[in-house]
């Protein structure tokens, strides 16, 4: 089980309190009916599935119930950092070699 730091509660809590909510930083189109099929597919179905660093959403559902974003390595499952929803994608990761 993972230990996850909720950036709102500011503490590490067990994974059971959280719900993974998929890839982060996917903006919902403002006028979804006008999207082309290609763009809708990219928005709705195509996902990054990296072997390495992933940017993903989590929800502290059995805690503060708020959404936040996390950076995690999908090989080691180690969290690099978590940050609040709405904050920009971090340009540089703490401790990252590349």
């Amino acid at each position: 089980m993972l230990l996850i730091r909720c950036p709102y509660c500011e503490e590490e809590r067990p994974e059971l309190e959280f719900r993974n909510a998929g890839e982060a930083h996917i903006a919902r189109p403002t006028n979804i009916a006008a999207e082309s099929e290609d763009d809708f597919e990219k928005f709705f179905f195509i996902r990054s599935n990296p072997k390495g660093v992933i940017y993903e959403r989590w929800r502290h559902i059995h805690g503060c119930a708020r959404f936040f974003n996390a950076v995690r390595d999908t090989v080691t499952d180690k969290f690099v950092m978590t940050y609040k929803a709405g904050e920009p994608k971090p340009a540089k990761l703490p401790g990252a070699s590349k």
Partner: protein
Amino acid sequence: MKKYSVFAIAREAMRGHKGWEEQWTSPEPKKEYDVIIVGAGGHGLATAYYLASEHGITNVAVLEKGWLGGGNTGRNTTIIRSNYLYDESAGIYDHALKLWDGLSQELNYNVMYSPRGVMMLAHNVHDVQVFKRHIHANRLNGIDNEWLTPEQAKEFCPPLNIAKEARYPVMGAALQRRGGTARHDAVAWGYARGASARGVHIIQNCEVTGVKRAANGAVTGVETTRGFIGAKKVGVVAAGHSSVIMDMAGVRMPLESYPLQALVSEPVKPVVPCVIMSNTVHAYISQSDKGELVIGAGTDQYISYSQTGGLHILQHTLDAICEMFPIFTRMKMLRSWGGIVDVTPDRSPILAKTPVKGLYVNCGWGTGGFKATPGSGNVFAHTIAKDDPHPINAPFTLERFRTGRLIDEAAAAAVAH
């Protein structure tokens, strides 16, 4: 390839078993092949086998980053069934089931296919309605599936607890008698032996690190840890790593990879005569010929390539197993492990040509690919050989996520996802 037979066993017994040959060769990779298959799991090896045996294409290499059958082929719970809801799924899974039936004879290799029956338990009114709908849909597609009362379920599987006060009461079950299990390793080994005997090169410890494309976009070969290997046709059959390989070719996939866990108990005398699945409480169980209870758990909630998975996922499954089978509460578990499964948005596989000329993909089998191994390899070989899908896999395109023609087994919930 020397044929296995009772006479071969007798002959080898007389001379100290010195005459058995290697089941497949391990040649050095050539500079160029007609077809490269990425991934020597069951599906990849079956593809190579049928390319050679049905289409006469023998200049084929199967590249494997680890050892043959060491991924999900060696990690799954070996359940075989074809009782899926939609016509397209019924077509491909039953194609596989029909091939399972003669596979040991065809490969001259005992894959231990055992049609002992797969029984899916209904625990609530919704389950009952869904399973009955499946049974009717299956029968319209010519696939056997029948409804059992709780008493009939208990008769078919005596250790089952059908008490009314059980935490997960059994309200009935759907039984596919042709379903069952097979020996997973033997499937990989049998296909490898058959393919190798027909001239296919199986190259282990050879990881694909890049996909090369010509100026016109067509595939020209793959970069590997053992150098560049050329081919005009490349089939990606890399399970949880399929999207990683496809990224190398510049194709983004509708796939997410999750750890899926399984575990086995200490071996005991025969006690579970069939496969029992419970989608609602998410547990499935059967007994191997060695006597171990083979138990499948669920996936973790997050993308991972760690091949482990969380302990609480196993605990959840074992809780359910102990409720349904109180006699197993004191069984000791011996081993648990994880495999990385690639899941599509509609929970149906992708077996198709891709936007890249010469690049084919067979992926997205999610949590239930083993059962499809022979059928998947069979129609994927056709797709590569003819550069055109077989009618059975024609609906399983990559484009369906753009056009919306999904095969939505996720919503149909035929399987424990």
